[in-house]
């Protein structure tokens, strides 16, 4: 697929897909968690209404804050959208796969996180500093586990290019059940829970000083700034679920531009992501949030799972 109009069209499709479906995924997770807690819960479309409401509201900015505060929502939103353009969702090969590979994706997320942490310190409130400090500390132990899980996936394909990883796996479907892959998948799943701030690492619904991490950094945001930040977190979760499903189980992805293939690709994408979202909700509902200093132990388990995959299947064995 090297002709420009196709690339532009497919990229736009991907962008709109992630943009539009992210709140829905959050809604599904919220509804599932509510049912687990034996209550009705908000509808699965509620996040859309929340975002629309926030976009219309007035923005309250502290005079202590600087241009960093005012520009970060746009920067985080834009960088998350660019990541959405780089990950495999519906089509393989990803139209813009030459712009960035999986390492670029990891570091683009780090870029967003850097600026959100700075915002925590920008308003001069104690909560922001608290959130920034905890977030950066946890992020620093997530990175090795994430990098090693990615490494395991990249080693089979011999490349970090996302299209190549997906293509190598889909060409030999039996290798999707390769235990090394399953181990790396579980490692990356734990990393996803940590990186997107879900229980057992962080509680996305709390505003208690004792327990919040991500929410603390963005506490001072309101109006459309908050809408963009919330939307970006929702997209981040959607992107991670897309990566989890397509890097390890790339079934049903479109390889041509035929409308039927694209439709099947979209349907497969939604099916996989919704299943994973349900699993995330179940894990969130059946676990308690870990004490902050127990989180390194959890991430060490993720690290070890990927390391086991490497040891058993690549280092000494066949």
């Amino acid at each position, binding site marked *: 697929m090297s002709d420009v109009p196709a690339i532009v069209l497919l990229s736009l499709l991907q962008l709109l897909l992630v943009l539009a479906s992210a709140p829905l995924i959050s809604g599904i997770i919220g509804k599932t968690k509510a049912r687990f807690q034996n209550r009705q819960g908000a509808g699965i479309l509620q996040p859309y209404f929340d975002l629309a409401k926030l976009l219309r509201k007035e923005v309250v900015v502290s005079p202590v804050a600087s241009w960093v505060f005012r520009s970060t929502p746009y920067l985080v939103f834009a960088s998350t959208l660019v990541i959405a353009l780089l990950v495999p969702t519906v089509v393989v090969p990803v139209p813009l796969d030459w712009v960035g590979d999986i390492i670029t994706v990891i570091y683009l997320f780090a870029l967003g996180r850097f600026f959100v942490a700075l915002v925590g310190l920008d308003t001069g409130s104690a909560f922001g500093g608290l959130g920034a400090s905890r977030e950066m*500390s946890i992020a620093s132990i997530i990175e090795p586990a994430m990098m090693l899980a990615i490494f395991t996936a990249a080693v089979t394909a011999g490349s970090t290019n996302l299209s190549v990883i997906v293509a190598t796996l889909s060409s030999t479907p039996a290798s999707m059940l390769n235990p090394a892959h399953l181990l790396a998948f579980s490692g990356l799943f734990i990393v996803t829970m940590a990186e997107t701030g879900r229980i057992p690492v962080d509680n996305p619904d709390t505003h208690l000083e004792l327990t919040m991490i991500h929410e603390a950094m963005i506490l001072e945001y309101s109006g459309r700034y908050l809408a963009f930040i919330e939307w970006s977190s929702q997209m981040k979760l959607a992107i991670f679920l897309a990566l989890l499903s397509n890097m390890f189980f790339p079934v049903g992805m479109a390889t041509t531009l035929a409308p039927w293939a694209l439709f099947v690709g979209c349907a497969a994408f939604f099916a996989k992501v919704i299943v994973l979202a349900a699993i995330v909700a179940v894990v969130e509902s059946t676990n308690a949030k870990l004490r902050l200093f127990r989180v390194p132990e959890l991430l060490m388990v993720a690290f070890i799972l990927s390391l086991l995959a490497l040891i058993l299947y690549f280092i000494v064995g066949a």
Partner: protein
Amino acid sequence: MSAGYVLGALLPALTGILGWGRVKSPGALDGLVKNLGFTIALASSLAGCVLSLSILLSGDPLHVEIQQSLPFGTMALHADRLSAFFLGVISLIAAAVSVYSLGYAKEFLGRRNMALLVFLYNLFLLSMAGVVLSGHAFLFLFFWEGMSLTTYFLINYEHEDPAARRAAYLYVVMTHLGTALLVVMFVILFSHTGSFSFGAFRDPGSRLPTAVQSIVFLCATIGFGVKAGIIPFHIWLPEAHPAAPSNISALMSGVMIKMGIYGMVRVYFDFLGPDIPEWWGILILIVAVTSSVLGVLYALMEHDLKRLLAFHSIENIGIILMGVGGALLFASLGNRPLASLALLAGLYHVLNHATFKGLLFLGAGSVLHATHTRNIEELGGLVKRLPWTAFFFLVGAVAISALPPLNGFVSEWLTFQALLLGFHLSDLSVKIAVPLTVALLALTGALAAACFVKAFGITFLGLPRSDRAASAQESSFSMIAAMGSLALLCVVFGIAPGLVVSVLDPLVGSLPATSASGQVVLKGGMMLIPQSNSSSVSPLVLCGLIIAVTLVPIAAGYLLGGRMRRRAVMTWACGLQKIEPRMQYTATGFSKPIRMIFSNIFRATHEIEISDETSPYFRPDITYELKTESLFLKYLYEPAYRIIIGSARIFRRIQTGHIQTYLAYIFLTLVLLLLFAR
């Protein structure tokens, strides 16, 4: 042209000597000396840039023979691609720092000897240029020693401060430890090749036996490693870099420690080989990984801005050495293309680190100049008072955290690619070393980002924590211009990596040990690694996409929410009336979670002192002191020191003070000589 550069660097030295006498009398002459000295340095640096580019693009080495009558053979200046690259790094950073110094040195006018500063500065630049341009061991050592001595005096520039004196002393002892090993190394090379010239060392006919090569390797590693600041020889770095004036710190951290890397690359890839033992690469990788992780962990505990940056230099040297070590490892297994990729990544990081570390130190100097304190716990809110400094410091912080689309990301990406490809080699130690190195590289990148969130956030954001911070003034134009130019370079080297890669590719191709090139293919703004099944990244398009895609939220905001209405309300102070600067997070508090996670490495002890001598009606005075243990000082240097002093004390017994004993020693030696040297 080189003669012109050398002369250009000498002229200000002469100016400095002429103006030496004018210590205590301020006035126009001092200002003239300053302007003249730094402008000549700037001109010479620009000339150096041009020289290095011309050698890099054309590939013809520069060879200038110096006729003299010392018995060490013909000395020559020989600049091949490797020298030219490092000369380019030196010149670029020196040019920016010279511009900066025009503004920065104003604060020394009338208080200190400006002529001395200018003299030492130019001499320092001259000696660094001499180190990379030398083609002869003696000349190399001459300039190396010159570099060490000028920096000794520069660190001691503010000599009333006992910390500065101690730092300079520690520095000079450590650097001579390294130099001693370098002398040993050159003597060994001389004894096996019969000449001191680098050309002879490179000659394939004079290949050394493997055991001797390993000794040379170890001498080079320790000797150059002391200068580069690898763990465990790093103890001088965090003391010396903060004590020097900020423009000198920028040069020391950005450029001088790279001279250690230059020496290592020169020895490993030019002189040694072709059969490289595997343990060399493994050793360098271990050193690299230790330096980077421990460097950044110690940096996180610092709240002196310049000490923090100094520890980060140790970390980045570790990252550079990951590339170098990887190259050694892959070359030892016979995979030259992979080795050249790894070395390319390491050298790219040399350039990147020089750029962003120089920028960060200049920014720290700006902050110091404006607030007269390096302690970030007393700062805050500077983003409003020093807007340009803040912006450029942020650019440096984003670059050092390896975030796209700036230059730090590019070199870390290349390092990751080289390591990932290395996993496919079928050697067991490689298969274990590579994943661990990859994981630890990711760890240091994330920890560096955490540290710079702290450094930038506490220093520049929030409310000012002291009056000094509240009354800071922005720096002068020359300082801002210098920082801006380095920030621009960070951006350029990030989004146009082709510029650097097209220069580095023939470089690694020209070194005997890694003689393969073409590992990174450039297409437009994109870098592609053919060996790895087309992993690629295009920072230019990435940057463009981010900028273009920003339209989406702006549009969404307008369409769905109308014009943005903004209201200014003070930050929530938890119900209290007014938010106080002391309610904010402190730097120590910020890094506490990391300190607790890595508590086994830090072994911190804290002391809380509550003084209750004050009246029972007022709150008591509470002091909190936190100390992290310096592992290497306690477990490596102090025992070594004790052993050396102890054995010296034992040997002192042969000096009895009686002149007869000394005569007896002479007699004994004479008899032994007569017996055995017949």
